[in-house]
């Protein structure tokens, strides 16, 4: 990439991909912006052919003043935060565990990664019907075995349950990234710390954790992007009831249940803004780790 000629050649070669990606992003974004300023209620006879009424910021005002808006933002943040906390903490522990030379390491690693291959809808169904069902679920049986009253997970501890399901799905991702980071730690550093008189916990705190900080940053950033748009897990389990209505789910309800495309689009724009605020916020606090 040194010469001018090769640089412009590179630009030309990259152009199709860039244009495709731009289109991919711009078309839905423009449509969303367009609809968010229109009154668009298909059930009431509005249609694209008939022309849509321009309503200015009315949709935005209505979406944000709805009593479900702020709770849904809060729900989203709690859910994302909870999943991040669980996956990062357990991911670090699992990665350290998997790095130990154990018998059947290869199989264990595949088993740990397996949940990642299960579709969100399927895993949510499995958790809902096989594990968390208050009558026939495995957990209910377990509770009864110990003489306890089975918990109806998805209604009484709905938020925790969904966090648990989503964490289960994302733990493999976190573990995998963190495992590669653990493996890249120079063993002489640990030995040096050992000779310097640091017991195992201090070695973890002063040597291993700082080494993992970059990988943890990456896990947090990538997961946040995906977790902000959790949908299938909520749809399949609680359907947004029992305080599990996230912003994404609220938008879905506005568009599909209430058939109000304009209002839903305005919500979509809010979601974009929220995602960006969270992303900038994260970049600020953890992104520093990426420069060093």
């Amino acid at each position, binding site marked *: 990439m040194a010469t001018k000629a090769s640089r412009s050649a590179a630009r030309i070669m990259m152009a199709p991909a860039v244009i495709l990606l731009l289109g991919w992003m711009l078309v839905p974004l423009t449509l969303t912006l367009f609809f968010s300023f229109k009154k668009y209620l298909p059930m009431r006879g509005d249609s694209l052919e008939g022309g849509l009424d321009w309503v200015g910021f009315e949709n935005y005002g209505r979406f944000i003043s709805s009593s479900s808006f702020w709770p849904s933002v809060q729900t989203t943040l709690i859910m994302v935060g909870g999943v991040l906390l669980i996956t990062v903490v357990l991911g670090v522990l699992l990665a350290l565990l998997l790095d130990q030379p154990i018998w059947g390491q290869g199989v264990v690693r595949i088993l740990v990664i397996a949940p990642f291959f299960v579709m969100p809808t399927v895993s949510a169904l499995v958790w809902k019907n096989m594990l968390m069902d208050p009558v026939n679920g495995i957990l209910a049986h377990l509770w009864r075995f110990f003489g306890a009253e089975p918990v109806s997970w998805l209604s009484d501890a709905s938020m925790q349950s969904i966090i648990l399901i989503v964490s289960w799905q994302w733990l493999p991702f976190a573990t995998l990234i963190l495992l590669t980071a653990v493996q890249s730690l*120079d063993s*002489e*550093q640990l*030995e*040096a*710390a*050992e*000779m*310097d*008189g*640091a*017991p195992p916990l*201090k070695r973890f705190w*002063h*040597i291993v954790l*700082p*080494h993992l*900080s970059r990988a943890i940053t990456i896990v947090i950033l990538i997961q946040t992007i995906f977790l902000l748009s959790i949908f299938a897990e909520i749809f399949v389990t609680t359907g947004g009831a029992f305080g599990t209505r996230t912003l994404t789910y609220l938008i879905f309800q506005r568009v599909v249940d209430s058939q109000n495309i304009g209002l839903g689009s305005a919500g979509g724009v809010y979601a974009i803004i929220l995602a960006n605020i969270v992303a900038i916020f994260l970049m600020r606090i953890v992104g520093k780790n990426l420069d*060093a």
Partner: protein
Amino acid sequence: MGRIQLKQVKKAFGDVVVIPPLDLEIEDGEFVVFVGPSGCGKSTLLRLIAGLEDTTAGTIEIDGQDATGLPPAKRRLAMVFQSYALYPHMTVRKNIAFPMRMAKMSLQEQNSRIEAAAKALNLTDYLDRRPGQLSGGQRQRVAIGRAIVREPAAFLFDEPLSNLDAALRVGMRMEISELHKKLDTTMIYVTHDQVEAMTMADKIVVLQAGVIEQVGSPLELYRTPRNKFVAGFIGSPKMNLIEGPEAAKHNAATIGIRPEHLTVSPESGDWKGIVGVSEHLGSDTFFHVAVDGFAETVTVRAGGDVDLHYGDAIYLTPDHELIHRFDEKGLRIP
């Protein structure tokens, strides 16, 4: 204090015996160098002493106390690794402070020791940098600094200079030697570079395949190598080892003569040969000579002004007093 004794220490990885039982004594304040070819078990031996590997059999005593089962931190030894093993996310100051922090030393004491070490090692200007912003030689000094602030009973060095360029290596060699003179603490130093061994050591331990071939002062090893291996390993360029009829004349299976103990003449001498490759170093010239009747070429040192060239006839005369004789097993014949 730093007297280290190994008694019948053995190390095996699974079925592979890397170090057959060996005995070794290291006196307090001595500078001991382990030297040997790659893979001979030098690092393993050092790590056994450090406690980073468990012995398969035998005991290790430090200052007369059994330390075989002690964890590394309790042995009061400090190690400098080949890769330096600095903590990359900590500044130089924090790196050096780390062992003292772990020992819960008072901040005041920590700072005074850091200042002293930094001054001794020329690191004062770099205390607030991170290892990534230092040159190889500076990193090496930080690693040494981290070792000295603990005031250990002995220092262990595992090829500390092998990542440095030649000029820096000579400089650091002197610095480490000076440090030893100043601190007067036991140092164990692993290298496969025999020049480092010769210049720094009070006592050299020559290892081959986990077996100690000879222990002695540099000059002892140079003058009276116990066997062919030591003879060939110590000295640069290597000692010429000659077999066949010439050796038989001296009632030996092999005779050895160092390049510096041969006299060169264009006209007459004991052995006649043809000059092959010659290496001019300015002060010295090394000729590789194909001598009539010898299987291998003979290396010889001559003055820098000897005017002989490729293909010229050359006569070599060994100093008979300085010919080493070895039997069929390769052992020295006195």
